[in-house]
């Protein structure tokens, strides 16, 4: 692993993977998103699991999900993990919380107790992405649309 002089993980050899960060505390979301962007990842920020599921079901391409467990909305991070396992079984998901989750580890690909060092999260996501190849998110709907019509976003087709 390479580190920049300020201690951040250096971005030099990181492919442009997309990480979905699901965290309702804007300061924590900002901290981890900044660290991931500084390491070369593209980051999609969500304030709730509902937002994350909306995006995933909408076909947004994601390499890894990193989610807090305690979240506002209709489901929490464990519910998000269950949904990911059921509907996107090839998509890795890492969870974080100040409390240890009750469920077993089959729900997630890694758990991090809060407070965590964001550099640890970056390293873990790098490992997960490397293990998973190019990432296994569903082909975005707009890409499939493009294959059909040549215009990725024209609702009229």
């Amino acid at each position, binding site marked *: 692993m390479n580190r920049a002089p300020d201690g951040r993980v250096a971005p030099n050899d990181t492919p442009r993977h997309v990480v979905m960060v699901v965290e*309702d505390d*804007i*300061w924590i*979301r*900002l901290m981890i998103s900044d660290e991931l962007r500084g390491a070369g990842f*593209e980051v*999609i*920020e*969500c*304030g*709730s699991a509902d*937002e994350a*599921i*909306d*995006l*995933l*079901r*909408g*076909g*947004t391409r994601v390499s890894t999900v990193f989610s807090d467990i305690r979240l506002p909305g*209709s*489901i929490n991070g464990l*519910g998000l993990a*269950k*949904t990911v396992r*059921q*509907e*996107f079984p090839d998509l890795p998901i890492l969870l974080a919380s100040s409390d240890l989750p009750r469920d077993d580890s089959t729900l997630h690909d890694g758990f991090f107790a809060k407070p965590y060092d964001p550099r640890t999260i970056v390293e873990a996501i790098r490992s997960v992405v490397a293990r998973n190849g190019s990432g296994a998110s*569903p082909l975005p*709907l*707009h890409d499939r*649309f493009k294959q059909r019509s040549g*215009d*990725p*976003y*024209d*609702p009229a087709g």
Partner: protein
Amino acid sequence: MTDLSSAPATRTILLAEDEVFIRMPIAKHLRECGYRVIEAVTAHEAIDVLDHADFAINAVITNLALAGDGFGIAKWVREHRPELTVLLTGTPERSVDVAAGLCRESSGRGAVDPQLLLRRIRWLLANRNRPVPGRGAQRAV
């Protein structure tokens, strides 16, 4: 009025938008234009950042219909940070107009065509919650 036309890479925009299918592509668009973007989902988050951030924020883009009151953000800024530019949105068209205007002012690279961005947002909104074929039926969770 904040000058957003120079050194966009060092300029930070607070984007307050509770519709993720609008916030995500607009934030991406602005980052591609060279801005640092702070994404707030609620008015409470936006004001929290404005009130406590230890870094400079140069402009605020807020949806009028934001949860917690987008107008409230504008009012708070007028009272506490009058030097800040506040750009009000409310529709995908207006959001794209605002983002495209900022990108025109920047010297950023590879700015996305605003019309393509708008079509993408409309398409995402129209297709939200559509289950992905081959990935199992959509479930109530």
